[in-house]
């Protein structure tokens, strides 16, 4: 009855199937992705409930099958190449071991070896994988029995067709290196002879990752190395070349000393070659990287951590300066959200993949050419004397920088990827540009102005400079934009602000067929704009709506003004037509961009970036009454506060750039990821950026010196990204079309998602404002508002607009409750009701962790918050609240003491009082939902920490609530309940719990009978979800008549309910 559709959960295993396909373990699903097309090729449920923990591909059979394991189960999966980049996966036989599997490896010959969490070695003939069926109780028994000490990590490496090396890391910091020689006996049974080589204390905490190097050829005496990583935040390298070394086994040592290897004599330890720290928290894995010419065969390793980042290290041999080998950190990369890289794989053709708790797979070449920062020496343009330097600059095309120098020279610098720029002088020194100058560019044309107010224009096509206007005052700022004229020729608009002048000058320049047959823009029109007081222009754009031309100016204090250009020329200064409403901080508007709505020509969208970390979009409509502006989108970006610019890339992608502490960041808003990071020293400097598809070129000034760095390729590609970095705590689904799913997580973010059918969940927006994990989310009935609560009394109201071009869904945090951040109380839950009287006002009841509740009124029009009533429960934390009757203000609450309570308020006072307290569960009620029965009574369905589902019928006044309690409904706390629409007389109920089960129940109702006599519950179906720590269960809009369930927790999971 429950059919799995898809899920988005942590990626716990990865393996390359040849170069173009990567296999990934996501819950119990094995998925195949094309590495170049970055799309899913196939997906198959490998186990019924067990998650996949490892995947290996035998090297011989050119990528035709994979061995997958999870827990104590192994399964072979055939990977068949189907037509045109499609792959089909077919399940092979299932086998079971008697313990948890930590690693597996195919020998070059006939064997498959597996090592367990108790250091037992299981070796079988590979042929068992081809068996058709497998008796369930036939357990693969160890060939070398294990110890009783629990391991956190192990690695098997075959040294020959019959000899394998096993390295094991324990929970207590010890590492054991041992080997086994396998032989076949006459009766076909396998025999193993094992030998322990090293037993030593390697770390101060659990050893989470061990890896032995492939045989080393070029490193002198060192034939093989061991890399380990741990709880203690260090990565260590050990020399295990000497495998003739013999050590007593862990057992023997422990038997001798009574406890652990800590007391072991040093002689059982290999030489420690190097140790280094880099991650900010625990390190889960290490890998040796294949040697490469570009690294001069220096041995490299990579570590993967809880901090969601991976670090590349080079093992440097001893030098004159240092007598020991050292690990040099070559780069940190954080491709995943939140916490944890759980899996990693290295391909034969030098690429490396990581899988995160965020459900994303990141792919990158191992030996990517590192982007290098080049210093552009002043001597390049000021001759050997080197006295001149660059004052201001801008890009005239993606590779050419136009610059003015201190001596008043105009030059261009052609940026080369692998070399210093080529400098061309375009104008000898001009006195007007000496010491001070500003410049701006649009594609192919640059402008410069200085103290005398003379504006020069440089056209790159002709490499010529023209003087275009003399303003007589020192230029304060230049801003430029281009406009498409009806005759399809580009017109250039230049806005000039002058020092000590309250008007800005706008020039229109259009290409003009000059006497020398060059198409050079010449001045056509000139306008003056009257700037409001304290309006310091920081950004500019021009646009035309239905033939009328307008200009938008952004100011340093955050204001934005629209000026309409009069149809007839006037020498008078034009006054602003409208000043846009703005929210948030009075920080500079750094860029403005106009996007016309293709469907409604009288309407358009004005995008702006601000120095308050946000990107905002206004919708602007030109009506008979003038401009009608509405803020439809404003979200905080994951960097800033200095957000500086924006570009629209192909396929409706928005890219935004700015700074985060010492770095320049380019962020793809559509893909929700960083695409470029340059360490440039921070925001307070002169810089220019030319965006490109997968990066761009940044030029910046640091200590009066010019630097450049370019990126032409993304550092990594992401598949199925967008997930939360931590567990989801709340989810809510909108009633709109398309349907939006809102999820709120422990990572303090709220995300909006869309989904349809089997298509993967697509993250549309990330709402960053909460400083604590999200507690509850609820949509207004019309889907226009989303409400969210968290700790510290945080409560926000979000206005959501569908179909905003380029950004999809527009979101604005319209209001935060005035008490947000004022205490350490958590708003555990809340319920909203639209008020009838007022157009857009809501009544919101909130329940708090200190056993109190408050009813507020919020008016969307004026942002007004008013306390309507408040009440005190007892001492238990309230967990849920429902409005039973909006008119009379009746409420129902649930609490951690297992009680449901009914509340009333009398209109005369501000007090809310509970009058009925009804014990349902033994311990906390974690979820409560309500359903109104045809006779007007209310059915409250509750899920408890006590594994029970309660069905409580609340009839009219005077009668006590009656409960039917289904004990042992789940094996663990029930956190999700939802009513599934079914037939008339019956009701279907779905429940989800932290036992990772989703269950379906039938509720039979004979409401003519009193209390719960006529209520019965029948179990219908159960399924196991890959989502751990389930926190919510919600209904999605039915598809093909089938109800769909969404389970959230550590990941998201979708099921259909067949009725």
């Amino acid at each position, binding site marked *: 009855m429950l059919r799995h559709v898809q899920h988005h959960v942590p990626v*716990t295993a990865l393996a390359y199937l040849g170069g173009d396909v990567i296999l990934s373990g996501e819950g119990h699903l094995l998925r195949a992705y094309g590495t170049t097309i970055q799309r899913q090729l196939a997906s198959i449920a490998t186990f019924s*409930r067990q*998650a996949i923990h490892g995947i290996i591909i035998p090297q011989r059979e050119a990528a035709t099958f994979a061995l997958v394991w999870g827990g104590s189960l192994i399964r072979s999966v055939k990977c068949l190449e189907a037509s045109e980049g499609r792959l089909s996966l077919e399940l092979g036989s299932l086998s079971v071991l008697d*313990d948890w599997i930590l690693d597996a490896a195919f020998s070059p010959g006939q064997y498959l070896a597996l090592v*367990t*969490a*108790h250091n*037992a070695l299981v070796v079988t003939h590979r042929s068992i994988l081809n068996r058709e069926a497998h008796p*369930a109780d036939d357990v693969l028994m160890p060939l070398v029995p294990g110890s*009783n*000490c629990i391991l956190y990590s192990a690695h098997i490496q075959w040294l020959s067709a019959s000899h394998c090396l096993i390295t094991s890391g324990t929970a*207590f910091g010890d590492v054991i290196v041992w080997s086994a020689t396998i032989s076949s006996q006459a009766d076909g049974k396998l025999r193993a002879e094992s030998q322990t080589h090293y037993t030593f204390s390697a*770390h*101060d*905490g659990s050893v*989470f990752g061990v890896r032995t190097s492939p045989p080393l050829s070029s490193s002198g005496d060192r034939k093989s190395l061991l890399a380990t990583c741990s*709880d*203690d935040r*260090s990565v260590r390298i050990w020399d295990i070349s000497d495998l003739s070394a013999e050590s007593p086994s862990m057992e023997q040592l422990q038997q001798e000393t009574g406890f652990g290897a800590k007391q072991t004599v040093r002689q059982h330890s290999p030489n420690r070659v190097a140790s280094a*720290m880099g991650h*900010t*928290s625990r390190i*889960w894995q290490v890998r040796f990287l294949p040697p490469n010419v570009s690294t001069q065969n220096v041995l490299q390793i990579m570590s993967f951590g*809880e*901090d969601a980042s991976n670090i590349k290290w080079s093992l440097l041999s001893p030098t004159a300066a240092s007598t020991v080998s050292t690990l040099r950190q070559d780069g940190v990369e954080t491709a995943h959200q939140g*916490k944890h890289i759980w899996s990693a794989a290295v391909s034969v053709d030098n690429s490396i993949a990581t899988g995160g708790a965020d459900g994303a797979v990141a792919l990158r070449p191992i030996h990517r050419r590192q982007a290098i920062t080049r210093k552009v020496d002043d001597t390049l343009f000021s001759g050997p004397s080197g006295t001149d330097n660059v004052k201001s600059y801008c890009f005239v095309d993606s590779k050419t920088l136009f610059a003015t120098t201190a001596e008043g020279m105009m030059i261009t610098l052609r940026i080369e990827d692998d070399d210093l720029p080529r400098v061309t002088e375009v104008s000898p020194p001009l006195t007007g540009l000496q010491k001070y100058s500003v410049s701006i560019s649009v594609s192919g044309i640059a402008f410069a102005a200085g103290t005398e107010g003379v504006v020069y224009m440089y056209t790159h096509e002709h490499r010529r400079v023209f003087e275009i206007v003399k303003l007589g005052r020192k230029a304060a700022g230049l801003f430029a934009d281009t406009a498409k004229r009806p005759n399809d020729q580009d017109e250039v608009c230049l806005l000039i602000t002058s020092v000590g002048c309250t008007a800005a000058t706008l020039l229109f320049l259009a290409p003009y067929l000059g006497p020398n047959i060059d198409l050079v823009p010449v001045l056509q029109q000139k306008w003056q704009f009257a700037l409001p007081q304290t309006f310091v222009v920081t950004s500019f754009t021009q646009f035309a709506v239905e033939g009328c031309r307008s200009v938008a100016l952004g100011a340093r204090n955050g204001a934005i003004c629209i000026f309409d250009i009069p149809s007839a020329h006037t020498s008078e200064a034009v006054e602003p037509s409208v000043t846009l409403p703005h929210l948030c901080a009075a920080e500079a508007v750094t860029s403005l961009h106009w996007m016309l709505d293709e469907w409604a020509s009288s309407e358009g969208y004005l995008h702006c970036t601000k120095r308050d970390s946000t990107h905002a979009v206004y919708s602007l409509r030109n009506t008979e009454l003038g401009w009608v502006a509405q803020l439809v989108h404003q979200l905080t970006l994951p960097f800033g506060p200095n957000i500086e610019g924006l570009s629209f890339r192909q396929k409706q992608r928005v890219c935004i750039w700015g700074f985060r502490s010492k770095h320049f960041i380019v962020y793809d808003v559509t893909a929700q990821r960083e695409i470029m990071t340059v360490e440039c020293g921070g925001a307070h400097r002169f810089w220019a950026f030319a965006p490109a598809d997968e990066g761009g070129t940044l030029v910046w000034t640091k200590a009066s010196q010019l630097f450049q760095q370019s990126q032409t390729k993304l550092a990594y590609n992401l598949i199925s990204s967008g997930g939360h970095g931590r567990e989801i705590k709340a989810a809510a689904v909108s009633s709109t079309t398309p349907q939006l799913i809102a999820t709120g997580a422990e990572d303090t973010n709220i995300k909006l998602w869309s989904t349809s059918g089997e298509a993967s969940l697509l993250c549309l927006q990330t709402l960053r404002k909460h400083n*604590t994990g999200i507690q509850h989310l609820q949509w207004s009935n019309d889907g226009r508002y989303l409400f969210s609560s968290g*700790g510290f009394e945080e409560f926000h109201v979000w206005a959501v607009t569908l179909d905003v071009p380029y950004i999809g869904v527009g979101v604005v945090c319209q209001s935060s409750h005035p008490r947000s951040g004022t205490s*350490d109380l*958590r708003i555990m839950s809340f319920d909203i009701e639209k008020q009838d009287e007022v157009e857009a006002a809501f009544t919101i009841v909130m329940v708090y*962790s*200190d*056993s109190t509740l408050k009813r507020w009124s919020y008016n969307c029009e004026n942002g007004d918050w008013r306390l309507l009533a408040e009440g005190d429960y007892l*001492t*238990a*934390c309230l967990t849920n609240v429902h409005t039973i009757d909006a008119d009379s203000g009746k409420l129902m609450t649930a609490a*951690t*003491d*297992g009680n449901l309570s009914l509340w009333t308020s009398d209109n005369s006072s501000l007090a809310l009082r509970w009058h009925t307290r009804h*014990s349902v569960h*033994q*311990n*906390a009620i*974690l979820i409560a939902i309500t359903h109104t029965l045809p006779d007007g009574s209310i059915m409250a369905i509750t899920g408890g*920490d*006590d594994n029970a589902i309660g069905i409580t019928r609340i009839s009219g006044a005077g009668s006590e609530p009656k*409960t*039917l*309690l*289904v*004990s*042992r409904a789940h*094996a*663990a706390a029930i956190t999700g309940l939802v009513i599934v629409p079914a037939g008339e007389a019956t009701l279907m109920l779905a429940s989800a719990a*932290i036992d*990772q089960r989703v269950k379906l129940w039938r509720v039979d109702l004979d409401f003519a009978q009193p209390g719960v006599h006529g209520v019965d*519950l029948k*179990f219908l179906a*159960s399924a196991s979800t890959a989502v*751990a720590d389930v926190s919510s269960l919600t209904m999605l809009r039915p598809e093909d008549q089938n109800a769909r369930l969404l389970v959230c927790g550590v990941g998201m999971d979708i099921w259909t309910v067949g009725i």
Partner: protein
Amino acid sequence: MGKSSKDKRDAYYRLAKEQGWRARSAFKLLQLDEEFNLFEDVSRVVDLCAAPGSWSQVLSRVLIQGQRIGRAAWEDKRYKELLQLRQTGDESMQDSDALAPARTVSPRNDVKIVAIDLQPMSPLEGIICLKADITHPSTIPLLLKALDPDYDPASTSIETAHAVDLVISDGAPDVTGLHDLDIYVQSQLLWAALNLALCVLKPGGRFVAKIFRSKDVDLLYAQLKVVFETVAVAKPRSSRASSVEAFVVCTNFRPPKGFKASLEKPLGAGRSIRTSQKLPYSQTGPSRTIREDGITELDLGSDSDAEDSEIRWIAPFLACGDLSAFDADASHKLPEGHVSLDPIQPPTAPPYRKALEERKKMGGAYGKTKLSSIE
């Protein structure tokens, strides 16, 4: 205010400091005792995974010093006040202490308490503290020797002539965040504790251990049910509702015939107590009963979910600690004039402390890691 999502210091944290407990866990054991009368007729106890030692403190105060620690220790006085305010004239409100069963208050004879942990533990008078790994077989002879000084480690016997009445274990690994792995490691600790209990527990003895109530916990319950007459899962009020933590309380130890605890083949890794394929409970159909409190309880029976061959069983749940107990999930206003005390026992240094210190020396950032303090 920084980014954080949980207030770590709840009422129990404060109470622990005020009452001199080394950890707030003390209240979990006290509340379990209140419900299950764990210490009744008990004088010989093994406390596994005992550091920093608050459970041992409870044992010491109750068994050695003969103290009676009632619910007054964790009662939120406001609860009754508030309730009384509401229900004036309602006789149903009685003093809960008057209802509490009278308990022996004298020190007991022949008390023997052995505490084991990986981490060193500050000594407690009258308690033998051992530093050992409970998952390791070499710990069994250590424990036997501690229980019975005459025990001859050379003998292969792993059964003690001086059996104990109660084995408690509060062991938990450092969780990684990889749920499957954490559940597995926790279950291994539970097996290790049970394995030790099988060696030292006298028939009829009790066993209490921490368990993660999550995926496949019903497999563990089913196994425990084989060796104990009753198995319940309990959640003390002092344990947060939001955590997966709970405690299995098993009473009346009755090892199946022919069952012998084994050093070489301990329980856990591969060896289960499945002596026969019989279910550990009798198969029942759905039952519908009306309880005293008026709630109609529906038990759907055992066969509601027979989708795989593994034997699963859901232990009955019992919340413990009266409703008047402080709520571990609630935020509390501190009483007027309250002074915060420092923890009496510094937390054991986590392995990364050294890393942090080294980082600090190098002038590096702390990163996201904070030194944790007492739980």
